[in-house]
């Protein structure tokens, strides 16, 4: 029998590009539910850095703008589905527009 898992985990959000310049932060620590969806990241980010609302986070404060995507630990792209997080995980937020 597994021991009871924590319901909240501490993660680090890494901002890139214009998002980083707008918030003037490269990394932001957040405490969010272990089983989460994007809104669990967008909401506290919007609350802490309201200047991200509009350019990076939609005005509903629960979704990223379509020009941004979130990636878990530099490996897994996060979709609208829920995902499991662990303490120390990194969520990368960057422009979805590749190319150059």
């Amino acid at each position, binding site marked *: 029998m597994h021991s009871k898992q924590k319901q909240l985990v501490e993660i680090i959000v*890494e901002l*890139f*590009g*214009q998002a*980083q*310049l707008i918030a003037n932060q*490269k990394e932001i620590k957040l405490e969010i539910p272990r089983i989460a969806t994007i809104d669990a990241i967008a909401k506290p980010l919007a609350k802490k850095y309201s200047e991200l609302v509009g*350019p990076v986070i939609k005005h509903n404060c629960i979704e990223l*703008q*379509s*020009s941004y*995507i979130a*990636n878990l630990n*530099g*490996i*897994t*792209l996060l*979709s609208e589905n829920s995902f499991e997080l662990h303490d120390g995980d990194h969520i*990368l937020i*960057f*422009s*979805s*527009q*590749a*190319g*150059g």
Partner: protein
Amino acid sequence: MMGGFGYHNKALHINLSNEQTQEVHIDNEVLDLIIGGTGLATYLLYKYCPTNAEPLEPSNPLIFASSPLVGTRLTTSSKFAIATKSPLTGFIGDSLSSSYMALELKKTGYDAIIISGKRKVPTLLTIENSLVRFMDAKQLLTKTTSQTEQQVKNLVGKKFSVCSIGPAGENLVRFASIANDGGRQAGRTGVGAVMGSKNIKAIAIHGTNKTNIYDESSINRIRENLHTKSLGPATEKYRTLGTISNMSVFNRLNVLPSYNFQQTKFENIEPITAEKTALTHKFGSAHCANCTIGCEKIFTSSSKSGSTIKSRLEYETAYALGPLIGISDPDTLIESSHLCDQLGLDTISTGATIAWAMESYEKGVLKQTDTDGLELYFGNEKIVPKLITMIAEQKGIGRLLSQGSKKSSEQIGESSDAWAMHVKGLEMPGYDPRKLKTMALGLAVSTRGACHNRSSAYESDFSFISNTQNDQLDKGIITKKSEDYSAVMDSLIWCKFVRKAFDDFYEESSYIYSSITGRECLPKQLEESGERINNLKKLFNIREGWDISDDTLPSRIFDSSNLNDSNQDDNLTRGELNTMISSYYIARGWTEKGTIPKSKIQSLSLDYILKK
């Protein structure tokens, strides 16, 4: 005779050797099948390039092609295509450029200009509508691209748009570019060397012919709609920090090739990220003609000599002249980029060839006696600007490197081909294929060599597609579709940076095509044109000696043993690539050897148009 709608229905063939010009009729039936831009240029290349022509010999044509969108003032549509047989690869060489040159080319009243033969003396070619003149250009020799453009405009008038080569093109550097309109470059595959081989230093073009649009009111409405969309989230990255913002992201994702692909992460990335240089270096945006996005970011640097240098910094340039050669000094990067543009060099091939030389030096294959005393170790920022100049001028070690990494390694031997990072002779762009597996396939099978733009296959690696369709067999279909999509974009021609502004690309683009030409065009037809154009490129390559061994990646890509990336579990293997290549051939309806069956050629009407 005036052409129909959207096209002029003719090309101008200029024979430089005998100064003869000839108008060539192109009927709508052909144009509907190959569209324009890259499609039209490929079609003309197939017809006008003799089989097995030497790329730097007079018989290899240099083709400039316009497209149906030029002149509509739709955002990002002021583009033109160049095609020739590449001196770097021996296969199709095609490159795009943009801005006022595209508008003037279309206004000449021709859909394409075919230049064959060779001048005996350095020449400025002027084309004003149908009037072609050959002017002495001796006074322009050794001038940079911007000096040449300025002097030509002073000579023939500012109403002309000018494309030119720098010293690199004059000296037949195999990765020389053609510059136009203040520094825009048709950069890849050595088109500038072909122009240089013909003794053409510059081409000045001006026209007064209008192109008729069948349904002006529809185009006006679409223009306004696209204008609005092009200023929204669909282009946010390009409008704000530009493509150089890839640097920090790619580095974080371990897909930024560094030290000649020996690493996928660059430890000294910080000073050359967009986020940092935006704070440390003044920068502004620039636009091509009729573009609402303004992706070009022009950075200002104070050089060590005290002069101020302004240069565009794109991601590919920053990657190739930065991490790939171990450089993290932003001023060196800006100076190197500026030098390449002024001397007329493709920045990717320049950086990648220098990276090959640096590794050769560190391995002892090239010695200081070979390098004119230059210490070619990675990160030696002092020697990079000098080395770039030596390449352009074919001096010292520059003579060897001016051939590109493939031919340089063949000349030097000592197994140095093991670290010559190219596909088919074209140096690799900044997308490490070890993790970007759809991109890996796109790079391996691309007809022009290691190219990120002719398939844009990275798109699926950075999107959700790669998560949901992770099967290697699917990647063949994804790559085929993205190549066809890119061929349509490059033939209409749209800038790739506007692609996300479309809700349904084929639906909207076919409607636009019909509104311009007055001829019905269904989305499916446009998609099939993309397939046709890619098959035509491949047919050209097969004719010029392609075989299945050309569709591969450098062996280093399959060796992850020395990478500093801790996550190597899922890196590309040779077996995976071979499976993906097979799936791509199946998706294309080709044989297992990658050749095109007769039935495919017929079903795409390629046999028909090549007889016309």
